[in-house]
């Protein structure tokens, strides 16, 4: 199997790069998604609002730290995967001068700005939202600096990826608040309005994800055969299988958990929380596989 040979030569250095990259993806999506979640739900209860902002800020700092660790890891990788190369000024300079350096600057600046949403608590909601939204856009621009969305037609490809990532970030960041809400089912008209709004925003998010994802795939895939014959394609199939697990989870929720909720069964909230936690675990797996794809594949070995 091509995917096994793609992994066969992977050394400890590469494993470290994969883990740091996956952590960066998660942190950046959580941090930017927290801003989107807050803006989509300005009428969240205070504890939920504070929790979302706090989670976003922690995720932003984690992503900044991981982005900074990526730099010497990348230099070390280029020099053959060793510590001496990681601090080689020539290699560090080469990484920084290129697309990876631009990505680093945009990502760190954006992740710092994202935290302006905390200003909301200081009674500066307008300023906080404006700065944090600018931060979200900078982080999204960081993502399109590296990879084939940096190719032509750049505006279309980068735009599609940004739409796709915004929707994904919103979804990833909503898991934790939903987990909390499932554990403490809210009551009253406010909670009902929030949940109804959540359903509408979620539907719009799914639409954007579908549209951007399908067009991107159609534009960039270029064939079915590489999916089957290359390690790259086989990792992709692995990700689709995880998606199938998520679909099973969705079906189980729809036919079993949700009716249980409607009947007000006492065990339903706990089961829903476990279901959301499992979704989070599957997301982590998907991000890890994404990092493997972007780190170990190459034209020859797929």
């Amino acid at each position, binding site marked *: 199997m091509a995917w096994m040979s793609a992994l066969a030569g992977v050394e400890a250095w590469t494993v470290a790069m994969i883990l740091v990259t996956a952590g960066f993806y998660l942190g950046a999506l959580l941090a930017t998604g927290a801003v989107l979640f807050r803006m989509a739900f300005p009428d969240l209860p205070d504890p939920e609002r504070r929790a979302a902002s706090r989670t976003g800020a922690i995720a932003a700092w984690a992503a900044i730290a991981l982005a900074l660790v990526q730099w010497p890891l990348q230099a070390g990788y280029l020099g053959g995967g060793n510590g001496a190369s990681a601090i080689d000024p020539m290699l560090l300079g080469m990484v920084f001068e290129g697309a990876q350096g631009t990505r680093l600057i945009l990502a760190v600046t954006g992740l710092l700005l994202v935290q302006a949403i905390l200003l909301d608590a200081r009674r500066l909601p307008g300023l906080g939202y404006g700065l944090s939204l600018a931060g979200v856009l900078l982080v999204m621009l960081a993502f399109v600096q590296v990879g084939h969305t940096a190719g032509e037609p750049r505006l279309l490809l980068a735009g599609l990826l940004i739409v796709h990532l915004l929707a994904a970030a919103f979804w990833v960041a909503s898991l934790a608040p939903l987990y909390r809400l499932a554990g403490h089912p809210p009551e009253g008209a406010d909670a009902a309005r929030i949940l*109804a709004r959540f359903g509408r925003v979620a539907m719009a998010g*799914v639409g954007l*994800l579908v549209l951007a994802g399908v067009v991107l795939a159609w534009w960039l895939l270029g064939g079915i055969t590489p999916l089957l014959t290359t390690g790259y394609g086989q990792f992709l199939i692995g990700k689709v299988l995880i998606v199938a697990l998520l679909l099973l989870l969705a079906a189980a929720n729809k036919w079993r958990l*949700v009716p249980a909720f409607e009947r007000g069964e006492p065990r339903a909230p706990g089961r829903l929380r476990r279901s959301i936690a499992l979704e989070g675990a599957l997301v982590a797996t*998907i991000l890890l596989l994404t990092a493997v794809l*972007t780190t170990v594949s190459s*034209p020859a070995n797929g």
Partner: protein
Amino acid sequence: MQTKSTIHNTTRAALAALLLAVAMPLLAHEGELGSTPEDGATVQGSPEKIGIEFEGAMRITQFDVSGPDGRVRLTNPPGNDPTERYFVEPAEPLPAGDYQVRWRGLARDGHMMSDGFRFTVED
């Protein structure tokens, strides 16, 4: 209301994951056009030059050739400026045996790449 949000959430989760997966090919890389000698080739006598060619400019940061006597000493390395053709020459004629080339580089789109090829030298 909570039940509806649960449906939306799980559906959204599944679709988002599906699309993350589908969108991944955008992270494919610069094309590698070929190597000299070709991967898996058997050549008669020591090759005069060893190298690789790319579709786009690549900054090669590591290019090692190893054979039956260990690492091969190379001359005329082109440096690591962006190039579509990277070729080196063995400092001395290669004795018969199996050789492996490992290289790493930074593609124009920011991706770090690592690959290699093998060839055999016959007397």
